[in-house]
């Protein structure tokens, strides 16, 4: 669909400009006339929503950095004393930024599950998917660094727990893990040097994300969008121009998303927060339960499900790395789960599995469920959940693709849309 450009410069000036820097042509071809499947549903609006989230985080973050002080003695008060109390609308900018991180992850999870459900990672879109995984990893790094900056108790202890994961390498090569951890910290504990470098990286990584997002969208514009039917676009009757059809649709759903965002910012700004982070970091007092932000909880549960530290870390890393291989693990020729009765069920089990792992990650390590007279330690739920997580990608995806009898695919997008009258979402 990266076809012939249809851009016609309107004036002498734009003709002059087009010969020298055809940026208007690029905008025109990618954001105006770009042929887009006519059957994209609500779940496809999250790409635009995510771009919005990134922009919001960068703009609010740049303003916060003007008032924030990356110093272990001053950081907490620069956030809670200055930004929240003295800077004009500082409370608003900070609450947008802190809740924005959660909204960003909420949107990215929907975007990823949508890609999984409709098989958007399959040929010829493997690179789009892998770039997406890279963005997700960068987001996790950025969010982690950002969470450390207010220098509250959970900031400090979260940073300690996560950076200490590297010390597990000691079990393979003695002292190497400790050396790496010391190098990361810039000292022998999480301290001022750590805070300073985390601030630097927190400011840097979003621009790396923006660059990879650029590649992600570029790669998307080569084959064009996948769609809920998962079948290829066969001709112009299957598509509509991106503008105004998808600009208006994306804008509408973005607006609804911003309402949800605003509800949290104005009426429940601490919903995603942890009370311990309103206490300044204290290296001498460990909080009773150290929990990461909600969007990292499933992986935290996997980490804790293994009693051996190094293997736990490998399970955690493996869970993330597995995502890269999905385009080749799924052996089915059919993209969309709409036509894959078995995969569809396994997909929903997988989604529930992730939610369950998140719940387990939020509970203390020795918690148990008391059901029908039986004590079920949550760590066993985490183990079952971790097993299914891996099995879903490495066992079920290759296997089901071979044995599943998929439903008949519709002839074309246009026929399918016209068949279901009045339904476009």
């Amino acid at each position: 669909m990266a076809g012939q450009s249809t851009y016609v410069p309107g004036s002498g000036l734009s003709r002059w400009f087009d010969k020298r820097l055809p940026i208007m042509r690029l905008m025109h071809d990618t954001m105006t006339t770009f042929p887009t499947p006519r059957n994209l549903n609500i779940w496809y609006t999250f790409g635009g929503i995510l771009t919005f989230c990134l922009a919001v985080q960068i703009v609010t973050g740049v303003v916060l950095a003007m008032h924030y002080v990356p110093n272990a003695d001053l950081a907490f008060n620069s956030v809670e004393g200055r930004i929240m109390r003295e800077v004009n609308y500082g409370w608003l900018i900070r609450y947008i930024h802190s809740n924005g991180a959660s909204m960003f992850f909420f949107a990215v999870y929907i975007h990823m599950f949508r890609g999984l459900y409709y098989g958007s990672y399959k040929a010829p879109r493997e690179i789009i998917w892998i770039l997406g995984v890279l963005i997700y990893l960068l987001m996790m790094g950025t969010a982690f660094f950002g969470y450390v900056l207010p220098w509250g108790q959970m900031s400090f202890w979260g940073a300690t727990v996560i950076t200490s994961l590297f010390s597990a390498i000691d079990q393979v090569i003695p002292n190497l893990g400790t050396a790496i951890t010391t190098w990361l910290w810039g000292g022998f504990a999480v301290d001022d040097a750590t805070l300073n470098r985390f601030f630097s990286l927190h400011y840097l990584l979003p621009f790396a994300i923006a660059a990879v997002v650029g590649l992600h969208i570029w790669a998307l514009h080569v084959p064009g969008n996948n769609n809920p039917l998962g079948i290829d676009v066969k001709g112009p009757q299957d598509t509509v121009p991106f503008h105004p059809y998808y600009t208006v649709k994306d804008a509408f759903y973005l607006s609804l998303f911003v309402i949800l965002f605003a509800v949290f910012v104005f009426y429940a700004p601490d919903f995603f927060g942890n009370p311990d982070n309103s206490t300044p970091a204290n290296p001498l007092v460990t909080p009773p339960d150290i929990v990461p932000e909600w969007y990292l909880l499933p992986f935290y549960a996997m980490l804790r499900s293994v009693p051996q530290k190094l293997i736990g870390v490998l399970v955690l890393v493996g869970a993330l790395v597995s995502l890269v291989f999905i385009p080749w693990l799924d052996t089915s020729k059919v993209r969309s789960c709409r036509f894959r009765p078995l995969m569809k069920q396994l997909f929903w089990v997988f989604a529930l599995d992730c939610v369950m792992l998140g719940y387990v990650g939020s509970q203390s390590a020795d918690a148990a469920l008391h059901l029908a007279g039986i004590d079920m330690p949550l760590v066993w739920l985490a183990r079952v959940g971790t097993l299914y997580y891996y099995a879903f990608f490495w066992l079920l995806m290759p296997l089901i693709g071979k044995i599943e009898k998929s439903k008949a695919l519709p002839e074309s997008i246009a026929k399918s849309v016209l068949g279901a009258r009045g339904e476009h979402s």
Partner: protein
Amino acid sequence: MRIALPLAFAVSLCAAAYGEDTSAALPPKTSSWSFNGVTGTYDRGALQRGFQVYKEVCSACHSLNLVSFNDLSAPGGPGFSAAQAKAIAAGYKIPAEPNDKGETMDPNGTRLTRAGILADHFPPPFPNEQAARASNGGALPPDLSLIEKARAGGPDYVYSILTGFAHKPPKGFKLMSGKYYNPYFPGRNISMPPPLTDGSVSFADGTPNKVAQEAHDVVTFLAWASEPKLEERHRTGFAVIAFLLLFSGLLFLAYRKIWKDQH
């Protein structure tokens, strides 16, 4: 934080099902606060009385480092006039900056002080952590600027602690020496002696000075100290969301119109 409460409650119910653990904290008593909910605002009377409780009782041991005297007359706060806030500030002695001769001590070695001004923050009761611990049996009275954001349960938790000293320890409960029994505190052994009694404070506005009233008012004051922009936030949110709803409605109509002929 407010949502964490039912969750914490559910979890503690589960814990209760395991057996009688007399050292686990009770879930905080839930009260309705004027500042809860979408239209919540601070009760001015409670804020001013709560300030009096903080000043006359809590501030003997607890600092309020992030709050300035100027905040007392800021919009959305206790509603003191600028002149009142100035007078309150002037009533505090602040360690003086070096004088023209570079001295911070008088000839007797006493720290020079000056009267507080609006730009000053509430001065801490102790010069450092060690001094605070030495005066409090080894325990550190926490700064109260963010106390209601720093504890699960927020205002309900602080209210429960302040009014929880009335409970008698159950039979067989081990109360450590120098500690007080408070079932809402983790471990139930708290270092803080019961801070409020009936009549601890004589309210200027004649409000009856029972413990429950004093606790209610100081909890409101500390809620404001933790979230001084809450009223502005609630008001702004209303306007923002009203606009967004209208805007979404218009976008929906545009969306319908543009897509009308496409299916």
